[in-house]
């Protein structure tokens, strides 16, 4: 008993000692934990608070509204329209198939099984096409009720976002709202936007050095709301229109669901509007006037160079491009023989034909090689060496002076003039009046055309210039190529004698007015020389026997107190052979459409106080007098009629 107690006491003493040791170890452990807590919560608190904030908040790119494109009077041609959209952040969806199936049922609760499945399949394809961390737009332009229903179910749909989005919309907006009109008339001037493809993104990113800036831009460009200008003003003025993206701070949970929006960390700066010089009404009028044709119509304010109208017919609907055009529709546009996607007024190059004759005449006057009263006899043919050059009028014009040569568009007269002037002096005159230059217009796609010289031919073909080619150049055929825009500028320069340059945007540097400059020194030609050719041009349209007189119904511009000046032209598509000429030239109507000549007409009005210059080209329209004169006159008449103070009749409708 005694021994047991001793032993018992020994056991207890050892246990107590060791228990104290264990307690000490435990105390050390708890002290260690406390130190760790101190380290995490006191020493590193700021660091972890930041990380926690990074978790809690997310910065989302906030799109600025894209600037509008408006016409010279402020009428909206392109702007963003709000619509309801459903988007997904696919990487946030743990059970993607389940969520998409649920979403499909929320969007179309009464849809058939196949329709729902089809919808889900389409979404999956869209998601599969996107990059991993891209938001993917599944549905656009959904109605309000569907939108509300999706929002209601959002707690069950992780990764699904139902928000208002913006869709770029083209066409003239009526003041009262409603459908947009005439989107196709502005397709080439305004252009269109689209989501950027990888090539565009890579190109834009490559231009940025700062990695942080690059990452931010990459995020913005992958935002479902990002659009980039792809053509026209939308392309060239993309930086102005785009605005600056902001950053929206949102509180998110671990699954990336937005709990609430906190506000903008960085304000968006809305894109600036671009105000075009184009008059939307005139543009629409011109587009309608060229309905069914393939061609161009350009109107320029001769005082300022402002382009009032820049039409390429037929147009196309840029809205389809902005929303993502489907392949079959795109192929149809590509294969259309009238080439709706081709920007004809800027990129279409044609031999100017007889519309060039004023330049030949002005060159002759400048260099004194032809007196305006000198008469040239036209027999219908001119011989040069062993070649014969024909006048369009086979029986000839008889004895003809300069004014009459323009009015009747006599080729023989200009063969003679060209022979005296020479090709290089002709080229010099052509360049002076605006050919050979694309003008750096804000609307892209302009081409320089071609003004041939002896040196050019040698460099291009390694051949000497033949004098016969000078004769051909004198009547605007042969190597000469000009765009409708250039011909309109040429007309404006003849009308004013000043070197005005075209512009389509008010944000561009304005052309100095003649009054502000040293006037006479700026004149492109002597006023008396210009007066002669202008007078001839007036006769073309307003006098019996003028080449356009009968095509215009013997009424000229048909406005009280106003006269117009003009010039017809034909650019040959199909070269007339000697045999055919022997058989008698076939009438235009007998030729297949694609072989018919292009019809050209340039003109300006009012004759005594020029304000507007016009150029109309109708491809394969036959001669200029038949196809182009009437539309050109109608367009000129429309714009003159609309301008206050130009027409004697005070009852004319006024705008601006």
């Amino acid at each position: 008993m005694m021994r047991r107690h001793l032993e018992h006491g020994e056991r207890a003493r050892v246990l107590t000692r060791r228990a104290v040791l264990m307690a000490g170890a435990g105390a050390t452990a708890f002290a260690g934990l406390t130190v760790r807590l101190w380290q995490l919560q006191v020493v590193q608190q700021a660091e972890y608070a930041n990380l926690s904030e990074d978790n809690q908040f997310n910065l989302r790119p906030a799109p600025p509204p894209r600037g509008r494109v408006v016409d010279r009077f402020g009428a909206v041609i392109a702007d963003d329209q709000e619509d309801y959209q459903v988007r997904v952040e696919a990487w946030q969806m743990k059970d993607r198939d389940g969520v998409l199936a649920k979403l499909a049922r929320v969007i179309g609760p009464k849809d058939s099984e196949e329709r729902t499945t089809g919808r889900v399949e389409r979404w999956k394809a869209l998601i599969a096409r996107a990059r991993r961390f891209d938001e993917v737009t599944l549905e656009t332009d959904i109605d309000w009720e569907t939108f509300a229903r999706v929002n209601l179910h959002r707690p069950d749909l992780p990764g699904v976002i139902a928000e208002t989005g913006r869709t770029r919309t083209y066409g003239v907006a009526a003041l009262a709202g409603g459908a947009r009109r005439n989107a196709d008339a502005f397709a080439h001037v305004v252009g269109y936007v689209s989501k950027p493809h990888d090539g565009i993104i890579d190109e834009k990113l490559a231009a940025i050095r700062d990695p942080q800036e690059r990452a931010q831009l990459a995020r913005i460009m992958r935002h479902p709301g990002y659009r980039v200008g792809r053509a026209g003003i939308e392309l060239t003025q993309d930086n102005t229109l785009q605005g600056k993206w902001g950053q929206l701070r949102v509180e998110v949970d671990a699954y990336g669901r937005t709990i609430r929006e906190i506000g903008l960390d960085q304000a968006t700066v809305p894109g600036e509007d671009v105000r075009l010089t184009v008059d939307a009404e005139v543009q629409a009028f011109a587009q309608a006037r060229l309905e069914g044709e393939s061609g161009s119509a350009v109107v320029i304010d001769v005082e300022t160079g402002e382009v009032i109208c820049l039409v390429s017919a037929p147009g196309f609907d840029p809205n389809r491009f902005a929303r993502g055009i489907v392949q079959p529709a795109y192929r149809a546009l590509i294969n259309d023989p009238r080439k709706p996607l081709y920007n004809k007024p800027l990129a279409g190059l044609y031999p100017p034909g007889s519309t060039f004759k004023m330049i030949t005449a002005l060159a002759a006057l400048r260099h004194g090689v032809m007196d305006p009263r000198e008469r040239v006899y036209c027999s219908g043919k001119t011989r040069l060496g062993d070649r014969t050059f024909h006048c369009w009028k086979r029986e000839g014009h008889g004895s003809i002076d300069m004014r009459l040569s323009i009015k009747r568009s006599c080729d023989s007269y200009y063969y003679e003039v060209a022979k005296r002037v020479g090709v290089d002096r002709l080229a010099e005159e052509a360049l002076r009046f605006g050919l050979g230059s694309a003008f750096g217009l804000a609307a892209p796609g302009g081409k320089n055309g071609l003004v041939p010289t002896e040196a050019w031919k040698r460099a291009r073909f390694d051949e000497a210039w033949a004098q016969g080619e000078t004769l051909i150049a004198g009547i605007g055929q042969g190597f000469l190529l000009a765009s409708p825009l250039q011909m309109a500028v040429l007309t404006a320069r003849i009308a004013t004698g000043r070197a005005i340059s075209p512009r389509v945007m008010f944000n561009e540097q304005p052309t100095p007015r003649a009054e502000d400059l040293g006037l006479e020194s700026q004149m492109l030609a002597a006023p008396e020389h210009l007066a002669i050719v202008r007078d001839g041009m007036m006769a073309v349209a307003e006098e019996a026997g003028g080449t356009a007189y009968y095509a215009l119904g013997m009424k000229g511009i048909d406005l009280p107190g106003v006269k117009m000046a003009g010039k017809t032209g034909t650019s040959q598509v199909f070269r007339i052979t000697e045999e055919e000429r022997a058989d008698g030239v076939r009438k235009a109507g007998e030729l297949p459409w694609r072989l018919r000549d292009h019809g050209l007409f340039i003109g300006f009005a009012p004759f005594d106080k020029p304000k507007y210059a016009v150029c109309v080209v109708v491809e394969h329209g036959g001669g200029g007098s038949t196809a182009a004169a009437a539309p050109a006159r109608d367009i000129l008449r429309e714009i003159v009629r609309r301008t206050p103070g130009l027409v004697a009749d005070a009852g004319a409708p006024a705008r601006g």
Partner: protein
Amino acid sequence: MAMIQGMTTYDPSGGPHSLRGRVFSMSFAGWTLVLLVSLLAGVGVAMLYSVSGGWEPYASRHATRFGFSLLVMLVLGFVPMRVWSSLAYPSYFVALALLVLVELKGATAMGATRWIDIGPVRIQPSEIMKLALVLALARYYHGLSIERVSGFFGILPPLFLVGAPAALIVKQPDLGTAVLVAATGATLIFLSGIQWRWILRGAIAGLAGVVVLFFFGLQDYQRARILTFLNPDTDQLGAGYHILQSKIAIGSGGVWGKGFNEGTQTQLNFLPEKHTDFIFTVIGEEFGFVGSVGVLGLVCAILLVGIYIALSSKAHFGRLAALGVCATFAFYVVINTAMVMGLVPVVGVPLPLVSYGGTAMMAVMAGFGLLLNVHIHREDELPSAGRLL
């Protein structure tokens, strides 16, 4: 039978063995233990309320379970200590048998086989084993004289008692519980008075065992967790994600915390398993350094009371059992908090009384029942080995 014996000793005169006498004998330390345990469970209820943003589904059930478990604790405290000592071996071998049964045909959930379904009840034998091992070792050393502790009988049978269940639990696989069981066993062997040279040898053998275990005894995911722990940056969205988010939560709490229900990491679901194993992060985030240290202080207070109870017991069984309960509880808390603070690899160990979970709560409260029992019966001397067997 022992229960009946305890009940029949009711003496209305209020002697030391009457029920009234026993309630009275549950003096300051006993009531303090009940109070502190209730406080800790109260912290659990509050945090679960915050986690789910209301009473449902966790907080109310946690409170109900605690209420029931508290009753069980009191009952287990008042039964004669003989009940505990005589149940020591049977409960141990039943638990061991159940562990073998789990190995043979247990229910599998989340890749681990830890449960057996008996009708509607789901039993997790490893939870029973934690307490059963404490009892078995206390019972074994109670009957062993100090001289024999470092001899053959003092070493091999206890090693078997600890090793067998630990090995079975590792196989489940449940590394956390296995470590806990092994550590508790080692603590009791240490407390038994085994000579230091054996402790040293054991430590070396244990270290070798850990190395062998790491390379041959672990599941891939367990090894990955440890590797992730050693190099957390390698996998920020996978296994490292949990621990990173946990550290962010605790660290961002700062000195005073973000406030009750205001923890963004918690409320926005960045925390994994926040209602069970990671509940301490919620405390850290919402109540900061002050709150976290407060909870650790509460745990230390419970441990101090437990050690006091142990050392004031006259029975060697009682002392060992009480210290065993304290050790288990301490290991739970230390491993769990060290885990959420990124000090040890992620192992599935809950924070006792705070984490949501019925079986664990019952096991912990049964342990405190034993502690209370040792306190109430501190004057009792259990018969020595021979008479007990």
